[in-house]
């Protein structure tokens, strides 16, 4: 199911402000890619261009190409709704729909396309997705309770289950653990390890240790200063990035000399 992502000469804008400049990157299927870099360097912005969530913000647009298995997301006639079904997303703060039960949350995306889903079929899907998100055992007795009653970590896993349930090819995660306690963080990291078997995963993280633990490849972004655009500085195997980066800035950053 997972797919290759190729980004070519991508510039990302908020109205007149160029937030990200000239990114070229190829992300292989079934890998975990981590984006690291100081705050404000455009990691989130760039991540959101990968499923056209960027354009949700008024005035935001991109130049360049993002190809998923060769199809340009930004070609004319492309339906962003279809793109987002193939490229799922998990956000920094867990955001289950507060008015829905746990079960409904998992099915939220699926129901959109497949109104008539039998009870047993949807039960199966709920169990499969929640199991996939390592949450099944904790919530199986209270599927009809509101999702907002769960702890932060559980909520985040619920959001992952929700994203997984629509069976996307790619999952984007923007600092999925930064609002979680360490135990929940570990649970999510384990989950990412498992999801990698099936999906292409891209994760933004502020936590160098986390990047080195979970990712196969790492991309380092940086900015020259406030108001300047962010740039992709270096992109390589995670091991290389942390042990032997080619760029000085990368080394400074991963060794904690700034940021």
């Amino acid at each position, binding site marked *: 199911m997972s797919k290759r992502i190729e980004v070519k000469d991508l510039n990302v804008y908020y109205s007149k402000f160029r937030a990200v400049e000239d990114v070229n990157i190829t992300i292989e299927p079934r890998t975990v890619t981590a984006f690291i870099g100081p705050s404000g360097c455009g990691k989130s912005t760039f991540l959101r261009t990968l499923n056209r969530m960027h354009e949700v913000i*008024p005035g935001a647009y991109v130049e360049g190409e993002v190809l998923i298995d060769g199809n340009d997301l930004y070609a004319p006639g492309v339906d962003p709704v279809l793109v987002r079904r193939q490229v799922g997303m998990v956000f920094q703060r867990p955001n289950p729909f*507060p008015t829905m039960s746990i079960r409904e949350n998992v099915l939220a995306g699926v129901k959109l396309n497949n109104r008539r889903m039998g009870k047993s079929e949807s039960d199966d899907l709920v169990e499969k997705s929640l199991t996939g998100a390592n949450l099944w055992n904790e919530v199986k007795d209270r599927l009809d309770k509101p999702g907002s009653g769960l702890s932060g970590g559980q909520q985040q896993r619920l959001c992952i289950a929700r994203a997984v349930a629509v069976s996307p090819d790619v999952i984007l995660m923007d600092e999925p653990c930064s609002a979680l306690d360490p135990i929940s963080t570990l649970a999510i990291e384990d989950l990412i390890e498992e999801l990698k078997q099936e999906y292409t995963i891209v994760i933004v993280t502020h936590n160098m240790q986390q990047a080195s633990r979970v990712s196969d490849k790492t991309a380092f972004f940086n900015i020259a200063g406030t108001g300047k655009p962010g740039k992709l500085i270096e992109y390589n195997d995670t091991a290389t990035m942390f042990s032997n980066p080619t760029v000085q800035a990368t080394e400074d950053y991963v060794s904690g000399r700034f940021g």
Partner: protein
Amino acid sequence: MTASAESPARTDRRPKATVRLGDRVFSLSTVVAGTLILVVLAAVALFLIVQSIPALTAKVGTLPDQATNFWSYVGPLVFGTVWAAFLALLMATPLSIGIALFISHYAPRRISQVLGYIIDLLAAVPSVVFGLWGVLILAPFVQPFYNTLVNHVGWFPLFAGPVSGTGKTILTAAIVLAVMCIPIMTAVMREIFLQAPRLHEEAALALGATRWEMIRMAVLPFARSGIVSAIMLGLGRALGETLAIAIVLSPATVISFAVLGSQNPNTIAANIALQFAEAQGVGLNALIASGLVLFVITLLINMAARFIVNRRKAFSGAN
């Protein structure tokens, strides 16, 4: 919590803070203001009750409209009030939600501000003007349509004939009411829709939702209680509107669901305006007593609304 008059069941373990004079005076003045509102309301209620008693205990034959007792007098009025407000909100609610969504989620930002201003302007039109517009422009305009409706679908109880020749029916009055309610309802809903958490909107979009699906999943549920309070505000206006209805509606003492005929139930407020000038003795008390009934209706409806909003609190957007 330096100066709260009503802090929650506070625990004794918490050390008491000294309260500064400025804080005490200021918080006291806010309490006084709040209490003043309750006092005024109590005074209004008291005034209504005292003035109502003669009507409530009136002898047969002293009440207007040959009513045998107060309740049979006020019955058609209560029906008319609720019915007109219901019809008005039936039109105003979807339209307000539509406009509010248009402004908050559909129109480009620059345009939406202008649109918001235009709608706000409607709120400023005095009710006499609405009344005059309703009777001079709207009623003649809709009358031919009413004619057609009664002629072709008159079998449907709502559209039962005979049709009103002037177009001054309860439906016309409800349209005027709806137009009067829309600005305030739209204003409230717009604000609520704008506050719908981006987080949930983006979650829906990221699942591949279309704009409408996103609104249904993330905006409307979040705005539910806000929509209810907007409807309450609109309802308050619809129930209490006086002069516009008095001018537009062709009233009679009936209970009828037909919305296109000339025999329309009157509303309490409009009835007061129409009859107050010539009312004497118990008749006057009956009018004020009908005002009391309206007051109680408002109270009940607000309680119901609160109940609806609170019932599904566990699933509400506020957490």
